[in-house]
């Protein structure tokens, strides 16, 4: 029987690609009484929410591949609760009343937070395009290694679909790079 107090949502960071959209989504869920206890790597695929009292949370997503020793201590001193990590995305939240608190209080740092994510996706996009180029070059350089047309089309199609998806994410994020 389905448990009415648990809700699993798939692919949330992909549905809400821009960090500010994902934060708002998590805050809307919290306001409806759907909360997460802890965020783990697998939460990027399947986020498990538990029914609680409605909460007014401010969520913050902050990509930090090489955090220094005082990264966690700084956020915690400012009153943020560490919820967990998805890859290098640190997730923080803070319960509040009144004005919605901000972790990034000027445009330059907010843009830098967003550009950190955008730059990672740009590298992935280049890798996908390089994958397509490698398959095409191999097709002409070593034609004998491709015994069937499927050997060529399938890898190109996989790289192309991933590159297109990354392109869509990048476009969404770039438009919201100062949010």
């Amino acid at each position, binding site marked *: 029987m389905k448990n009415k107090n648990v809700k699993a949502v798939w692919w949330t960071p992909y549905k809400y690609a821009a960090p500010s959209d994902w934060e708002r989504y998590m805050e809307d869920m919290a306001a409806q009484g759907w909360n997460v206890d802890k965020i783990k790597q697998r939460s990027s695929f399947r986020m498990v929410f538990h029914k609680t009292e409605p909460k007014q949370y401010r969520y913050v997503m902050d990509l930090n591949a090489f955090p220094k020793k005082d990264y966690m201590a700084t956020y915690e001193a400012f009153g943020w609760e560490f919820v967990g990590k998805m890859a290098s995305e640190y997730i923080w939240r803070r319960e509040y009343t009144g004005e919605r608190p901000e972790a990034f209080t000027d445009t330059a740092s*907010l843009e830098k937070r967003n550009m950190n994510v955008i730059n990672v996706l740009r590298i992935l996009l280049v890798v996908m395009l390089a994958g397509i180029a490698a398959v095409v070059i191999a097709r002409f350089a070593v034609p004998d290694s491709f015994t069937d047309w499927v050997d060529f089309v399938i890898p190109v199609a996989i790289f192309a679909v991933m590159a297109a998806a990354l392109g869509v994410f990048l476009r969404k994020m770039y438009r919201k790079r100062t949010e």
Partner: protein
Amino acid sequence: MDVKKAEKRYLPMSETMFYILLSLREKRHGYAVMLHVEEITKGRVKIGAGTMYQSISKLAGDGLIAAAGEEGRQKKYQVTALGMHILQAEAQRIRDLFEAAEELL
């Protein structure tokens, strides 16, 4: 970072950077800087945790501030001679702006 490079990179500087450097004339950790900046600007300038960490990392990486002990898990920082030079150059720039603005009023 040499002086010329630092001047090019930091002048003019954002209000956030200016107040952080100004506050770090005394040894402080990020949270104490935030409180001090709020106090001296009478609550007008609020610096969040992400902005503080990013700014302090950048300033320390470029040698404008340096680690100066720890309090609990938080590192304290203090402005260096290079940081002081940049801060004074920015103060001079703001004074010039102020004088130019005065003529308008």
